[in-house]
């Protein structure tokens, strides 16, 4: 069994000199990240135990709006993937490289979904607090941007991921702010 396992992670393709040895440092980093993420979720769930738990609750109109937002995000991803495929077919390479392009497409789809939800008042749930959401997003933005710049200074190649996620959360924050301003300008409610 041990021999089989060792063989499976040390296969070398002699014709192309391609090694299939996994990047163990990256795997370990992802593992630590998952553990920390689960820990943060547990903390959030505990702090929200009197407010309906970890998950936000939405009313029927918000769920319908989220469905439309999912559609917007889905088609954004499809169009971007098609665009990337066409560029690939024409041998027009993007300067971003494969991994970064995939990440950019994913984050763009998520961003379109989230901003659509915000504009349709379907992002903040019934048991959510807008101020607390804004604070959480601010912390995420600052920590991701900070980590990104720190990783770049340390010469790490993964700094781009942190910077992209930080920019995404910054755009979400901006969308929440713009929506709040628009609501205030329209007098809130009662016409």
């Amino acid at each position, binding site marked *: 069994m041990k021999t089989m396992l060792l063989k499976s992670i040390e296969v070398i393709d002699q014709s192309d000199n391609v090694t299939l040895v996994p990047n163990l440092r990256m795997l370990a980093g992802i593992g630590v990240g998952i553990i920390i993420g689960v820990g943060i979720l547990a903390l959030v769930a505990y702090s929200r135990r009197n407010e309906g738990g970890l998950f936000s609750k939405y*009313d*029927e*109109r*918000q769920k*319908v709006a989220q469905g439309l937002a999912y559609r917007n995000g889905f088609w954004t991803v499809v169009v971007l993937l098609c665009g990337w495929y066409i560029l690939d077919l024409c041998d027009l390479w993007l300067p971003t490289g494969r991994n970064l392009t995939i990440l950019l497409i994913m984050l763009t789809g998520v961003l379109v979904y989230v901003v659509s939800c915000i504009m349709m*008042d379907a992002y903040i749930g*019934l048991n959510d607090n807008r101020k607390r959401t804004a604070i959480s997003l601010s912390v995420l933005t600052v920590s991701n941007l900070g980590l990104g710049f720190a990783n770049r200074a340390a010469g790490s190649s993964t700094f781009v991921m942190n910077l992209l996620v930080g920019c995404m959360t910054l755009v979400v924050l901006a969308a929440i702010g713009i929506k709040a301003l628009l609501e205030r300008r329209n007098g809130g*409610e*009662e*016409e």
Partner: protein
Amino acid sequence: MKNLRMKSARAAKDLSQQALAELVGVSRQTINSIEKGDYNPTIRLCLAICRALDKTLDELFWEETDQP
């Protein structure tokens, strides 16, 4: 189509949109959307709103037409 009957029923009870939303278990924006005619609520939500405002479904949500 705007639901002015619901708006006036809410005003008669001296309830804000937020207060009615909390009574009924939805967001304020949903109440606003219903009153502006931007969203058609389900029967369940209609009934909840009627109960909160002490009105019948006909009084708040029936669309009157010109047909005899």
